[in-house]
């Protein structure tokens, strides 16, 4: 088939049809009418991606295994020095912990520690769009994963389930532009909404009242407001505070606790006790 002889109108018609179908797909997907069809296509491909990911892991492990012995010895020496340093820090922290424990016990009198139900999931892929931040995990709706469930790793909050298929789910990372999480600062107790900076940007909490004195290094936790995330999950640390006295609010730049590039296993929190906000649903005086 010689495409140079193809009539121009057929070429334009092909392009127009493809563009039309693509726009139709976008609209159907945005309105949520494509989920079942997508699940049908995505599940087998996700299974192949999961299998490939596991093979790549094994291959990478095999390559990393027989490393140079000298490098290993240097690493041991470095780690030993690090252990000494950490032991000293640990002693100092124990003292702080004593005080903290006392305050925590008082705090816990008024609060029941919620028991979360967690589901372990393997990260099998990453967002194919370079401008978006999400991961694909090997658990889906058949495993009890639902849209909106929070996802964490051993180091802190990872994100929220965005879309599920029967055996896989897509998780929007907290660093994505679309992410906004009610957050609280550990020391100053300031609250705000943490926005993911997206590509090339930083996570930040905007519109913090100037009355709060925020210091770099403060831990950022989920506030639990809104009920979508459990309270007190570690998100990261404040690395910079943009405080201008001429303005009414200040802004904290946050570094995530999780290394998203190294994520392999995550936990989907399938059940937790959200903060009770029913008190606000009833009008006063009732």
């Amino acid at each position, binding site marked *: *088939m010689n*495409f*140079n002889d*193809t009539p121009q109108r*057929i*070429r334009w018609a*092909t*392009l127009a049809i*493809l*563009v039309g*179908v*693509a*726009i*139709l*797909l*976008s609209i*159907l*997907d*945005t309105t949520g009418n*494509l989920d079942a069809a*997508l699940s049908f*296509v*995505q599940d087998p*491909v*996700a299974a*192949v*991606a*999961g299998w*490939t*990911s596991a093979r*790549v892991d094994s291959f*990478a492990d095999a390559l990393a295994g027989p490393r140079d012995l000298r490098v290993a010895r240097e690493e041991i020496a470095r780690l030993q020095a690090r252990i000494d340093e950490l032991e000293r820090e640990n002693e100092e922290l124990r003292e702080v912990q004593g005080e903290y424990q006392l305050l925590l016990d008082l705090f816990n009198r008024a609060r029941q520690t919620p028991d979360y139900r967690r589901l372990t999931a393997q990260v*099998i*892929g*990453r*967002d*194919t*769009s*370079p*401008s*978006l931040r*999400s991961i*694909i995990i090997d658990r889906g709706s058949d495993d009890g994963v639902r849209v909106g469930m929070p996802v964490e790793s051993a180091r802190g909050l990872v994100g929220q389930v*965005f*879309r599920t298929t029967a055996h896989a789910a*897509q998780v*929007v990372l907290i660093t*994505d*532009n*679309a992410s906004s999480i009610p957050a609280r600062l550990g020391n100053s107790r300031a609250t705000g909404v943490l926005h993911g900076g*997206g*590509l*090339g*940007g930083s996570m930040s909490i905007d519109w913090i009242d100037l009355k709060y004195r925020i210091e770099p290094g403060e831990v950022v936790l989920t506030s639990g407001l809104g009920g979508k995330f459990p309270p007190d999950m570690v998100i990261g640390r404040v690395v910079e505070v943009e405080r201008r006295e001429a303005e009414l609010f200040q802004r904290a730049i946050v570094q995530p606790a999780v290394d998203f590039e190294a994520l392999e296993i995550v936990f989907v929190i399938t059940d937790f006790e959200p903060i009770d906000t029913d008190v606000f649903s009833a009008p006063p005086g009732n």
Partner: protein
Amino acid sequence: MSNSVYVAVPVMVLATVLQTAVLPRIPLFGLTPQLPFLIVIAWALTRGPEEGAVWAFVAGFFMDLFSTAPMGTTSLAYITAVAVITWIQQALPPSHVVLPVIFTILATLITLFVSLLFLRLFGYQTTISAVASLAPISLLHGGLILPIYWLTHLINRTVRPHPVQI
């Protein structure tokens, strides 16, 4: 429509699996190249706008399966890029080295811009500066296109040799 459409589906499934599960683990200069996109561009430059557009649609479809972007946005971005570069290609003399590199850089920039446009249209907070920070990926694509282009060119010549007039 050509039979290559049927080849596009398995090729793009494979390329997308590699894109989501393997390539992010081996970034080049800190960037993850878009393998399905490179295949689309190479095929479009070899086989022309019609087949290029179909491959672009298929590639975009599978890419969007593993993205939070609305289904169809990547297809639109790829189709636009293919349409532009194949249109320019027809006006220029054939070249197997310089032009594929230039076309790929151009196509990458077009894709990024069109993606930004559609993502914003669907309410995503993507910014120009964020997309601009991805511009170096166009240079990476420019460097990687040559082996893929030559391979597709070779496949094309083997599978569909030029007709000989007697």
